[in-house]
C-alpha cells in the first residue's frame, strides 16, 4: 500500500539508520530504539514490512551478509542504494530547511518552559 506514496517519517528514520553503512534488521531495530526521535516504536512485523516496501521501491537493497556465527543461515543485510541515498539527502535537506524556518518557534518555546 505504501507504493507510490510520499516518504513517511518512519521510512525516513529507517533510511537514516542505513546512512552509516549496511545493517542487519536486528541492528536497525536497536538503533531505532536507542536513537530514534521518540515517536512510536516500530514492532518487528511493521519494521519488516516497511523494509520490504523500501526494497520494492528500490531505495534499499538486500544482500546476504556473511553469517556472523558458524551456524544458521546467512543473515540478511540491508544497504542504501544510490537512489536511496539521494532520497535521504533530499528529504534531509527539506527537513533542515523546515527546521531553520521553525527556528523562532523553537526559541519561543524555550522562553516559556513547560510546567
Amino acid at each position, binding site marked *: 500500500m505504501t507504493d507510490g506514496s510520499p516518504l513517511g517519517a518512519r521510512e525516513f528514520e529507517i533510511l537514516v539508520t542505513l546512512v552509516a553503512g549496511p545493517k542487519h*534488521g*536486528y541492528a536497525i531495530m536497536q538503533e531505532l530504539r536507542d536513537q530514534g526521535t521518540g515517536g512510536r516504536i516500530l*514492532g518487528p512485523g*511493521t519494521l*519488516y514490512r516497511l523494509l520490504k516496501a523500501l526494497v520494492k521501491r528500490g531505495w534499499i537493497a538486500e544482500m546476504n551478509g556473511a553469517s556472523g556465527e558458524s551456524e544458521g543461515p546467512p*543473515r540478511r543485510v540491508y544497504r542504501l542504494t544510490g537512489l536511496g541515498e539521494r532520497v535521504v539527502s533530499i528529504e534531509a535537506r527539506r527537513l533542515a530547511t523546515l527546521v531553520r524556518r521553525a527556528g523562532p518557534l523553537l526559541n519561543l518555546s524555550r522562553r516559556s518552559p513547560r510546567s
Partner: protein
Amino acid sequence: MTVPRWYARMLALFPREFRREAEPELLEMAEADWSATASRGRWPKALTTVRLFADLLVTLGRAWAGRIRGARTRRTGLLDAVWQDVRYAWRGLARTPSFLAVAIAVVGIGVGATTSIVTVANGLLLRTPAGIAAPEQLITVHARGRSGSSFHSFSYPDFHDLQLETAGVDLAAFAIFPASVVIGGEPQFTGGFAVSGRYFPALGVRPTLGRLLGPDDDQGLGGARVVVLSHGFWRSRFGADSTIVGRAITLNGQPVTVVGVAEPGFRGHVAVFAAALWVPIGMSRGPDQTAFFTDRGTSFLEVLGRAPGLSPAQVEARMSPISAHIGRAQGLDWDRTVDIRRYSAVPAGMLAPVVGFLGLLIVLGGAVLLIASTNIAGLTLARALARTRETAVRLAIGASRGRLIRHLVVESLILFLGGGLLGIAIAGGAIGALTRLRLPIPIPIQLEFPLDLRVLAISLGSALAAGLFCGLFPALHATAGLAGALKDDESARGTGRSRLRSGLVAAQVAASALLIVVAGLFVRTLSKASRVDVGFESAGIHVASVELEVLHYDQGRIVRLAEQIERRLRETPGIQAAGAIDLTPLSSGNQTSVVAIDGRESREGIGFFPTDFARVSPGYFATVGIPITRGRGFGSEDRTGSPKVMIVNQTLAERIWPGENPIGKILNWGQIEGGPPTVIVGVARNAKYRSLSEEPLPMLYLPIAQEAPGQSISFLVKQSVPNPGMAATMREVIREADPNLPLSSNVSFETVIGIGLLPNRVAAGLASGFGLVGLALATVGLYGVLNYLVVRRRRELGIRMALGAPASHIRGIVLSEGLRLTAIGLAIGTAAALGLAQLIRSFLFGLDSVDVIGVLMAVGTMAIVAALASDIPARRAAATDPVEVLRND
C-alpha cells in the same frame, strides 16, 4: 533475555512462504526490541508484550491478506471469487442492519435451542465419565427374569460365582451406598457406592492420594472398615487436606479409615450421580444382615465388567451357562440367563426413557431451528425478489447465474454463521444455568455438560447446512426466468416463487403447530396433575426425612427416637399436627408386600394379595388429613407386646372382602405363608401413594411402634401458617434428638410432589417457550407472504374492484389465502404432533392417547393468530383504490 516463547509459537500461524522468508529476521528484531525493555521492570515489560502482540496480529492479518492476493494473481479462480462474494454479501447485509440483526437473532435462538439439548444428550449419552480408561471395553451385566425381563440385580454369592467362572471378563459389583459423614460435628447426607474388589481395577481409575479399594478390602461382612473419597468431596468438605489418608472419619455413625482419594474428575461411573465416596460391599450392611452375603435370593448388586476383545454377545454366550448353573443351584426350575450390554453412563434400565425424553426435546429444538431457517429463507427470497430488477440487469450485462446464486448463498451463510455463533453463546448460557441448578433431592448430583468439539461441530455444521439450504433455494428461484423482469411484467412470473414462499410459510405454521400442540399436551398434563385428588392435604405441610439404614440402630431405639421427635415437633409453636411415615407418599418410591388369608383368592387366582404398605405413627392420618372411614386409627396402646394391628385402605378392603366390613378380620402379612396374624382395626380413605397418575392401589398401614422402619423415617408437620423457617426448626429438633441422624431431605410436601413432575415441567416449559417463538416467527412469515401477495396482485385486485367486486370480496380473497396456508400447516403439524404424542405417552399421564381438548386449544390458538395476521394485508387489499391502480398501469 530472549523473546518470549509465545512469540515464536504464534509465528506458526503465518502462511508457510511468509515464515520461510521472514521468520528468522522477525525473531531477531523482536529479540532486539524485547531485550531493550525486558530488563527495565514489570511495566515496560508488560507494555512491550502488548505492543509485540498487537504488532504480530497486524502482521498476521497482512500476511494472510497478501497470501490471498498472491493466490488470486496466480490462479484467478474460486478463492478470489469467493472472497469477493463474501465482501459483496457483507456490504449488502450491512446496508440493512435491522434485517441482519433480526435474522441473526432468529437463527441464534434456533441454534441455541438445539445446541443446548444436543449438549445435554451428548453429556449424558456419548461422553464417558472422567477417569474411566478404555470405556469401549466395558459391559454391564444384568440377570434376566423368568419371562425374559431384564435389569435384575445379583446376590453376593451369585456375583462371586460369576466372577470366578467367567474367563476373560474382569467383573465388578457395586450397590448405591447412602452415606452420612460427620464434618465439623454436623452429619452431612451424601451418597457413594459400595464396591467389590475389582471395581477400581476394572474401571482403570487411579488414586490421587493413598490407594483405592482392592480385592483385599472385599471380605464380605465384617471386613476392613475403609473408605476412598472422591476428589471433589475431599476438596470441598475436607479442604483438600493432604494428611487425610490414614485418618478416621465418622461415616454412618462409625469410625472408618480413609485409605485414599480417587483421581480428579472421577465421580463414579453413573451419569449425573456424583459419588462422594466408595466403601467395600461388606460395609453396606449391618452386622445382623448376614443374609445379604449368604442368601442367593437376596439380590442387591449391580454388575459391570471389562471384556477386552469380546462383544456383548460373546460375553453373554460365555456367561449364560454359568448363570443357568447357579440358578439351578438355588432351586430355580428354569435356565436363568444374563443380559449383557455395552456400558453407558446412563444406567441400562433408564436408557430408554432418557433417550426418549432427550429425543423429544431434540425434536422440539429442531422444530424451532426449522421455523427459524424457513423464516430466513422466506426473508432471503423476499430480498432477492425485491432486487429482481438489479438481478435482471446484472444478468443482462453478462453476470453468470451461478455468480448471482453464489452471492445469495454466501449472504445466507454469513447470516447462519453469525446466528450459529450467537446460538452457541446462548447454549453456553443455558448450560451454565443448568450446571448451577440445585434440585431439592437428597442425592449428590452433578449436571456437567461441557460444550465439546463434537457438539460445536454439530451446531455450526447444522447451522451452515441450514444456511446453504435457505440460501440456495431462494437463489435458484429468484434467478430463474428473469427475462420478463426488465419488461416489468409482474404477472408473467412469480407463481413458482410465490408457491415456494407459501410452502415456506406452511412449513413454519406446521412446525409451530407441532410445538404448540405438544406444549398444550404437557400443560394439560400438568394442570390435570395439579388438580388430581391425591387423597390428602399437601398444602402447608413440611417434610423432613432421616436416613436410618446407615446407622444400623435396633428397633427399640428407632421407635423411641421417632416418638421423641414427633412429640417435640408437636410441642413446637406454629405446628398444628405432626406425624411420621417410613416412606413419603409421591416421592417416586414404593414398598410392596403381600397379605394372605385362608380361603380367599386374589383376582389373579393366587392365594395372596400384593399390596403397598407403609409404617406410620398415630398422628400421621390427622396430619395429612386422611380420614379413617371405618373403625379406628392407631393409638398409643398399639405397641410391642400388644396385639398386632393394621389399617387397610378402601381398595384393599374391597379386593379381599367385597361388600363386607373388614374390621376385626385377621390377615397374615409379609409372607405368603405363616406371616404374623394381624387384626384390622380401621379402614382409611384411598389416596395416591406412588405417583399422581396411578390407578387406586391397595395399601396397608402398620404402626411404627409395632413394626419399626429400617431404612428411613419422614416426619411431617402441619403448620398453622406456612413458615419459611420450618426447615431450620425441624433440623434443630431432629439434631437435638440424635446428632447422628442424617437428614436426606427437608422441604415442603409440594416440593416433593413437584420433583416427580420435573420432566413434565421441563417439557411443558420448553415446548411453550419454543412454541411462542415459533408462533411469532410463523405469524411474521404469514404476514409477509400475504403482504407480498397483495402487492403482486394489486392490478388484478384493482380490476376486480373496478368491475364491481365489493371490498369484502377482495378481503376474502386474501384472508382465504392466509387461512389456506394455515390450514395446510396446521394439518401437517398436528398430525406430526399426534404421532409424537404416541411416542411420548409415558410422559402424558391422565390424558387420552388423543387429547382432543388439548389439540383443539392449540389449533384454535394458531388459527386465531393466523387470522389476525392475515387480516391486516387483507384490509389493505380491500382498501385498494381501483382508479389509482388503473391509472398507474
